[in-house]
């Protein structure tokens, strides 16, 4: 993880000066992180877009095992995680029958301090996922110090106890120097639409090796016309 706040873009990005780097990357960017590990909720703008996984995995420490919970619908709709494609091999995968089991497994995992993070993918808007369930996860996560990521695929933005709420969509990748016709560094459009202790914002970022960069082209886009999401 990149350390040290280099630039906060998004709402303030018009004022921010974007340094053009030779490969199309902008300023180095630090993820707005909560002061201590907690529950973050992440919405995939398109349910069959795997882009969020790249953004999430770049933030997970690799020193301890990772617990990854998927409910059956998420596996059917957008695939099972594929360890050779992940940076970490040390993980435990739980295939939950439904959202209730998935939330239970996440809560069990979050209570352990022996995990680097708990990732739970839920499809749609299950009944079991209400404010109380997310609040329980947030409290357990803060108590044990294990970060928890609740990933919502094809779900509506509803009431939630999560401290940070993101919307992630894949963006056209950066130019590949070696072959202009093939995909380059992955890029994402992020929106932090609700956060405790941090102003909301929108960013276009790319990930390179061990750090995030703002993408220069979209660094100073106008924000007035974009829809505002508030939960």
């Amino acid at each position, binding site marked *: 993880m990149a350390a040290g706040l280099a630039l906060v873009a998004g709402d303030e990005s018009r004022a921010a000066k974007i340094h053009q780097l030779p490969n199309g990357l902008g300023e180095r960017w630090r993820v707005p992180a909560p002061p201590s590990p907690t529950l973050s909720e992440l919405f995939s703008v398109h349910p069959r877009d795997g882009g969020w996984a790249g953004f999430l995995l770049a933030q997970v420490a690799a020193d301890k095992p990772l617990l990854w919970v998927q409910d059956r619908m998420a596996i059917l709709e957008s695939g099972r995680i594929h360890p050779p494609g992940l940076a970490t091999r040390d993980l435990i995968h739980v295939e939950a029958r439904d959202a209730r089991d998935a939330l239970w497994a996440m809560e069990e995992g979050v209570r352990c301090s022996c995990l680097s993070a708990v990732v739970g993918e839920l499809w749609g808007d299950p009944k079991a996922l209400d404010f109380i369930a997310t609040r329980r996860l947030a409290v357990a996560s803060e108590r044990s110090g294990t970060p928890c990521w609740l990933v919502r695929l094809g779900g509506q933005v509803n009431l939630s106890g999560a401290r940070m709420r993101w919307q992630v969509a*894949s*963006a056209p990748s950066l130019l590949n120097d070696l072959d202009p016709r093939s995909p380059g560094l992955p890029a994402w459009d992020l929106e932090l639409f609700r956060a405790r202790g941090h102003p909301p914002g929108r960013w276009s970022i790319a990930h390179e090796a061990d750090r995030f960069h703002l993408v220069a082209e979209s660094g100073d886009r106008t924000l007035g016309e974009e829809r505002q999401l508030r939960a």
Partner: protein
Amino acid sequence: MPNLAIERWAKSASFAPDAPVVLTLEGPHGPIVHAVTKAAAERGARVGARLTDARALDPALTAIPGDPAADGALVERLAQWAGRWSPLVEVDGDPSRLPGTGGLRLDVTGVAHLFGGEPGLVRDIRHRFAKTGLTSRVAIAPTAAAAWALSRHAPCICGPDVAARVAPLHVSALQLDPGIVRTLERLGLKTVAALIGVPRLALARRFRGAEDVVEAFDRALGRKPEPLTAIGTDPPPRALLKLEEPATHPEAASQALERLIPAFVRELEDRRLGARRLSLTGYRVDGSVAVASVATAIPSREPRHLQRLLADKAATLNPEFGFDAFALSAEWTEDLGAAQESLVEEPSGTRELARLVDRLTVKLGPRAVQRPQAVESYLPERASGWISALAKTEPVALPSAQRPQRLLDRPEAIDVIYATPEGMPRRFMWRRAIHDIARVEGPERIAPEWWRQPSSARLRDYYRVEDADGRRYWIYREGLIGDGRGGLPAWFIHGLFG
């Protein structure tokens, strides 16, 4: 259990108790009487006679085909149930093939005092079998063969002088071949006592080749060891709880578990063992058992952890007519030395992780909680193997190529516009959504594994594509035009990139 077949039938049938009924089996020359009711026996029906002969004596006889397989299953169930008296139980003979030989052998060494001595044990066994509606003949003897003989011919509790007890019995008590028994009878050696008087050498010479009479004789008198096949050098750790009254309360199993765990953990501690698989067995009044088993990821003997694992499963045990005994045993144990986790009450990482895996596995099932186990293969769906999180993983070197973060369990067919025959894809339709391909990289060709796949398997050309919105997918074309393994190549989507 001399009358097992007829008693099992009588429990399920709705005949008057004094009806003359015989159970028959198919013999080489027509049906043979296999079991008889008391009324039928009084009218002359004998086990082993032909049905026609029995009918000749009493035409009113009702014949019903027997079911030796069900008899065998009942004996198996009773053997499990008999675990309440001794951890070592063996089914004696094969009642499904040889009718009327159903019996149970229990190793009661060092067990009897729990039931008030050997007479108490015999009384208890007889009493409980009678309650289930089965006649039992119980004998305790220093040797298995002697117990076999006595239980069938003169049920009693035999002291150390086996020879004196066995001597008056008929020679068939020695578990000999019927042919040999007949020969011995013809020779006038009708009892074991008569046999003892004959010089061993003469006996051995006379019955050479056939099952050795001398050997059977030695087995009965304890001169030759005859181990139970169920014997284990180290009986598994086990704690037993007997209830005064049958408990029909649904919470009974959970409460029994609470009382069993301390004794069980103490035994594990004494033997320096940790349980990997343990089961709680509830013995019901009606001669059946209910079992709840759990497995653990690392050997454990921590009372709270074991209790937490078993508590949910114990609650599901159905008491039916009531439990009157419980046993907690570990079928699979591993060495576990005395260890202190840390000075403060802070569990270590591996142990905490193992406990988490245990809890998840118990609740969701072993197939739902998995760890990645790489397999040496280029086929992506094979390379990303999964095994149960309880098992150990082995490191395997994988080819380093760019792989997607997510893989569909089953590749989905897509419609693709591409430059034939082997050109780049331009546009594809997946789940009724059209994706225009903006960037593409490939192909990465993965050949079928001819040593394990059928010869009709086609090669795959994988492309990493990015659509106009920037979503990245992994698609492949299966086969080539004119590869002789099917028609036109088909396209599939296999993975999603992050």
